[in-house]
C-alpha cells in the first residue's frame, strides 16, 4: 500500500537561510509519529512547509501525499486534499464569525469532492456535538474566530476544526504549548477520539509530556534541520532524561 506521506530528502529555506537540510520520513495510514527537537531545530518550519505557507521555499527533495507530490499545490489545495495543520499560535480573525468560518471550510472541502454544500441545520447540529466533546460552549462558537479566546480555548478550537474537516493527515504544531494540565487533557482526549486506521498524525513537540497523552507509534528527533534519531515511544523518555545535548552528532 502506498504510504500516506513520504518526505524525501526535503530541503527548505526561510529568507534564504537553510532550515531543513534533508528530511526523510514515511508515514503510513493510521500511524502517529512524533517529532521532537530543541528550539530552532526546524520543527515549525517543517509544519509550514508541509502545509504550504508562503515564504517557506523548498530547495530540494519532494513531499508525496498518497503517492503524489504536493509541492506545487497551494495551501488551500493541500487542505482540501486532506492535510490539516493545528497551529502553534492560532490566528485571531476579528469580524469573521466563527460559524461562517467553520462552514466555509467544511463546504470548500465538500464542493471539492463533488458533494453539495452542507445543510445549515445539519451543520449547526454537527458543530454543537463535536464542540461539546471539547468543552466548547455556544458562546464561544458565536464569537469571531479566536478573538477573546484564552490559550487553551484556541487549542481546543483547533481540534474542533480538525474534527469537522476529518483530515487524512493532521500536523499538530506544539499543541501542548501554553496549556495547563487540565487543558492538555481535554485537547489530548479530543485528538485521541480522532485516531483511526485511516488517519495519520504528525505530532510536533518540544516536551515529552504531550506524548503521555497522545501516545505515538514512532518518535523522531529533529536537530539542526535533519532527523538524527528515530525509534519507538521509549525514545521520547530517553530524550526527556538526557536532553537534546549530543543529538547533533548522533546522525
Amino acid at each position, binding site marked *: 500500500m502506498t504510504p500516506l506521506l513520504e518526505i524525501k530528502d526535503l530541503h527548505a529555506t526561510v529568507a534564504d537561510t537553510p532550515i531543513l537540510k534533508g528530511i526523510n520520513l514515511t508515514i503510513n495510514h493510521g500511524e502517529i509519529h512524533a517529532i521532537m527537537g530543541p528550539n530552532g531545530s526546524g520543527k515549525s518550519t517543517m509544519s509550514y512547509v508541509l502545509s504550504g505557507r508562503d515564504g517557506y521555499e523548498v530547495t530540494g527533495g519532494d513531499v508525496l501525499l498518497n503517492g503524489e507530490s504536493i509541492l506545487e499545490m497551494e495551501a*488551500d489545495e493541500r487542505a482540501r486534499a486532506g492535510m490539516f495543520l493545528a497551529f502553534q499560535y492560532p*490566528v485571531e*480573525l476579528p469580524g469573521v464569525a466563527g460559524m461562517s468560518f467553520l462552514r466555509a471550510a467544511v463546504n470548500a472541502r465538500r464542493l471539492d469532492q463533488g458533494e453539495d454544500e452542507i445543510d445549515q441545520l445539519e451543520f449547526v447540529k454537527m458543530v454543537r456535538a463535536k464542540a461539546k466533546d471539547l468543552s466548547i460552549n455556544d458562546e464561544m462558537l458565536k464569537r469571531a474566530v479566536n478573538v477573546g479566546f484564552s490559550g487553551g480555548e484556541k487549542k481546543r478550537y483547533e481540534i474542533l476544526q480538525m474534527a469537522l474537516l476529518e483530515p487524512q493527515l493532521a500536523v499538530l504544531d506544539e499543541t501542548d504549548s501554553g496549556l495547563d494540565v487540565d487543558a492538555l487533557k481535554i485537547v489530548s482526549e479530543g485528538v485521541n477520539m480522532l485516531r483511526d486506521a485511516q488517519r495519520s498524525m504528525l505530532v510536533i513537540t518540544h516536551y515529552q509530556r504531550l506524548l503521555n497523552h497522545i501516545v505515538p507509534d514512532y518518535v523522531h528527533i529533529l536537530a539542526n534541520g535533519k532527523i538524527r534519531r528515530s525509534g519507538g515511544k521509549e525514545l521520547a523518555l530517553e530524550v526527556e532524561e538526557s536532553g537534546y545535548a549530543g543529538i547533533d552528532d548522533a546522525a
Partner: protein
Amino acid sequence: MPESMMQPDLQDVAPVQGVRASALARWQERGWPGPKAEAWRFTRLASLDKLSLRPADASLSAGMQDIAAAGMPAAAHVIRFHHGVLVDASLQGAPDGVTLRRLDEAGLTQMLDLLPADHPVTDLSMAAMTSGLLVDVAAGAKVTTPIILMFTGDSEAVSTHPVVLLRVGAAAHAVVADWHQSAVGLSAPLLGIDIADKARLDYAKIQSDGAATTHLAATGIKMGENAVLDGFQLSVGGCLARLEAHVELAAESSDCRLSAIYLGRNSQHHDITTNMTHAFGHCQSNQIIRGVLDDSARGVFQGKVHVAQDAQKTDGQQMSRALLLSRKAEADAKPELEIYADDVICAHGATVGELDETQLFYLTSRGISRDVARAMLISAFLDDAVDMIENADLAALLRPIVTDWMQAQKRNDA
C-alpha cells in the same frame, strides 16, 4: 473670472434672483479651487476642465427608465430626480406627516445657512440648480417608511444640481436614503438637513454613479437639542467623488453618528470630507471610516472636529482605516482636532494597511480558496462600519452594494 473654460458652462442658464444670484456671482468670481487650496489638496478637479458640460434641464427627462434595485424596501416612498430634475409625480403620495414641495426663496436661504459657506459646490449648484425640493417632516411625526431620494441620468454631456432641504420637526423621526446612480458628466447635489430638538433621522447616502461621473456633493447638517442622527455614506461609483458633509451640533446633548465606506478600483478617486462642529456641550459625535482600494484607486479622508470653548463634556470620536489591495493604490488621511474646551473626550486615528498574510494563511490552511479568504477578511473589515447602521431598511439597501463590489473583486482576480 478665474478660468476662461470653467465647467460647467452656465452661459445659457436662465437669469436667477435672490440668493441664487449672489451664489452665481461668487461662483463666477471664484470658480473651482486653485492648486494651492488646502481643503482640496488631495482632490484635484483639473479633469473637469477637459469636459464640455451644461446644466441639465427637463427636456432630457424623456426615456427615463424604471428603477430596480436589490434590497429596496417594498413600502418606501421614492422621490425621483432624472438628470437632477425632480419628477413631478414623486410629490404625490407622501407618507403621513411628510410634506413635499418645491423650494422657495425662504427655503433657499435656509439651505445657504446649512451648507458649507464659501464653497464652490454650494455656490455652483445654488446658481445652476436643476430642481429644488423641500421635504418637511411634521413635528412629532414618526415616519418609519423610508423616503428614498433617487437620482438617475444617462447623459454624460450634462451636469446635475439637485437641491434638497430636509427638515425633521421637533420629536419627529424620519428614515431617508439618498441614492445617486446617475451616469452624467458632473453630479453636484446639495443637501441641507435640519434636525430639530429631540428629533431623529436615520440617513444613508449611496453614491453609485456611473464610471465616468464626477460626483461632488455638499451636505450641511444642523442638529438641535437631544437630536439624533444615525448617518452613513457609501461611495462606490464615479471616477472622482467627493462627499463633503459639514455638521453643526447647535444645541446641547445631540448625538451624531456619521460613518462612511469608500470602495475604489481602477483609477477611481474617493474623498470623504467631514467637518464636525461641537458648538454646545454634552454632545457626542462618532465617525468610523473604512476604505478598500484596489488597482490604482485613491482614497482620501479629511475629518475635522472642532470643539468650541463652551462645548464642555464633548465626546468626539473619529477612526479611519484604509485597506490597500494593490501596490499602486493609495490612501491619504487628514484627521484634525481643534479643541478649545478643556473637559472633553476626543480621539482620532488613521491607519493604512494591507490584508494580513498570516490571517490569509490561516484561512487557506482550512481549505478555503484565497479569493474567498480575501473576501472574508475584507468583509470583516467593512462590517465594523456597516454594523453601525441601526435602521434595518437602510442596512438592507447598503449591504448588497458592498457585497456586489466584492463579488466583482473575485471576478477580477480570477
